[in-house]
């Protein structure tokens, strides 16, 4: 594997919904590059194609054209390169959502351990990995708690731990700080940067949040289905 190909690379990605006169080009020409250990922002107004891009990257909808490489592996090149998109999502992509969407009937540890278990790892090993991640994210003291017993910030940290559970090369974060106040939002960004650095994970953060935009070193703007790269302020995180 060529290190230069690690992280996320998107070239000429297009997505068209429908056909004929009613066709809509949600993505027209998307080009992105995120290196391992890097956290980049994806910013754009509503209807610009952010969610469509995230869904293409998350292998839940199929692009119409272009090329996507995740962690050195080309997953799409005019067609999916694997039949098992479920395993691709499980093993190579971590998801962090706007709301944490933790499974309410599993405790914190098992919410995190579920992914390695789904990948076929033994329960004990999966739980050990979950506890390590919870310690790294400073929520190990809530390991046996139910999601409903956690604060919003704690829930989001658990969802980050879940995204990292299978050590994916890529994490897609969909407005992870939207429901949080400034302090907690910056705290989540600090954690994402730490985790990216620690686990060499490429992270794309889709956001509208003015509080965190200045923290990115690089930002991709998306307008009318096209991406434009811009250098960010890279403001230091508390």
């Amino acid at each position, binding site marked *: 594997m060529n290190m230069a190909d690690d992280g996320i690379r998107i070239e000429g990605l297009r997505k068209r919904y429908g056909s004929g006169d009613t066709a809509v080009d949600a993505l027209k020409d998307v080009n992105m590059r995120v290196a391992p250990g890097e956290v980049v922002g994806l910013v754009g107004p*509503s209807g610009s194609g*952010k*969610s469509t891009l*995230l*869904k293409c990257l*998350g292998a*839940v*909808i199929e692009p119409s054209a272009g090329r996507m490489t995740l962690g050195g592996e080309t997953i799409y090149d005019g067609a999916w390169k694997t039949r098992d998109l*479920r*395993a691709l*999502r*499980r*093993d190579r992509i971590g*998801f962090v*959502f706007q709301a944490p*969407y933790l*499974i*309410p*009937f*599993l405790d914190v540890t*098992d919410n995190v*351990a*579920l*992914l390695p*278990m*789904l*990948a076929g790892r033994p*329960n004990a090993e999966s739980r050990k990995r979950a506890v390590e991640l919870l310690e790294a994210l400073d929520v190990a003291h809530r390991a046996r708690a*139910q999601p409903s017993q956690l604060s919003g910030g704690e829930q989001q940290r658990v969802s980050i731990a*879940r995204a990292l559970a299978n050590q994916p090369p890529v994490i*897609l974060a*969909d*407005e992870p700080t939207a429901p949080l106040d400034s302090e907690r939002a910056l705290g989540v960004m600090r954690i994402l940067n730490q985790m990216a650095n620690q686990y060499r994970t490429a992270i794309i953060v*889709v956001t509208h949040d003015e509080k965190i935009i200045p923290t990115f070193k690089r930002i991709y703007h998306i307008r009318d289905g096209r991406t434009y790269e811009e250098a960010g302020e890279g403001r230091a995180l508390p």
Partner: protein
Amino acid sequence: MISLAGRDILHSWARFAFTGIGLGLLIGVTLSMAGVYRGMVDDAKALLDNSGADLWVVQKDTLGPYAEPSSLRDDSYRALLGLPGVADAANITYLSMQVRQGGVEKGADVRTMVVGISPGQPGEPGYLIAGRQITRGHYEAVADVKTGFALGEAIRIRRHDYTVVGLTRRMVSSGGDPMLFVSLKDGQDVQFLKDNEAILNERQRTAANSALNRPGVPGLLDAIQASQTSNHNVNAVLVRIAQGHEPEAVAREIRRWKHLQAYTRAQMEEILVSKLILTSAKQIGMFLVILSIVSAAIVAFIIYTMTLGKIREIAVLKLIGTRNRSIAGMILQQALGLGLIGFSVGKIAATLWVPIFPKYVLLTPEDTLRGFVAVMLICALASTLAIRAALRVDPATAIGG
């Protein structure tokens, strides 16, 4: 791997418990309905077993004495005793009627089947749980405990008072009414004796008939009037077969030479189970079908509603790589879990409330097993609607707008 279904049930245990209890009561009713049918069949078999007979000899061209009225002369048994293969033959009468508890002035009416028997002969209750068998010719009775009569208690049957001298158990008619045994003569009176007014009228009518009241034939009128007030009919003759003889062969001889109908044990069971309680069985069968459909609808609705409440979680589970079969398995296991809770509650409820039913209700292990399998199948089928909804959830719904 974690049991998602088990964790969800534990997490929402109160909802599962209350739903399971509701479903369980419905299952309890279903099991009891099946038990009512089994009780009817068992009552019919008990009736045959307790009679101690191998053959039932009844009026020709009838299905008597239980399914149809049957009347034959009370001296028929003598002729039957002369047939090869007949060890014992005894007259018997059956009449379902109200018997008043505690004599004429007080007490409630009890629905019983009054059986006229010959002491020591087929038809007599095989065992007593208290007291003794009938020894006097008149006005003694042996009652099934289900009548509620006590030993030594006075009861009124038509215009005579009887004393309960013995108690027996599981002696019931095919309809489940407890039996009350009296002497054959009393049984005949109960069934055939006219009231005093009717007898007086009949005597006057006969005396006014010059063909029957002939001055030149003294004693004719008295003989005719005596024959009008006494009755020599019974409903059936119970026959015990001598060792080494086939009941069907003896029955064939009776049908051929005595111009009577004779039924073997198997034939009588067929009459009772397949003819007498057939309509009731169909009625119960319809209830079982309706209750099964209602149970299925309830389970389907509950599981479907619970699944709809977890759509976002299901989308997340699918997005992070959970197999469709794991999600389907989770819903199926929850449906089966609900069925298991419901069945356990239903079985316990049915066991507790069955003894207070007025008629015999028999819960058999076989029916319990069948019920369990049926509940599990119904729950599995009912979960398909929710599974279909869950499998249609697009994992993309977990991402963005």
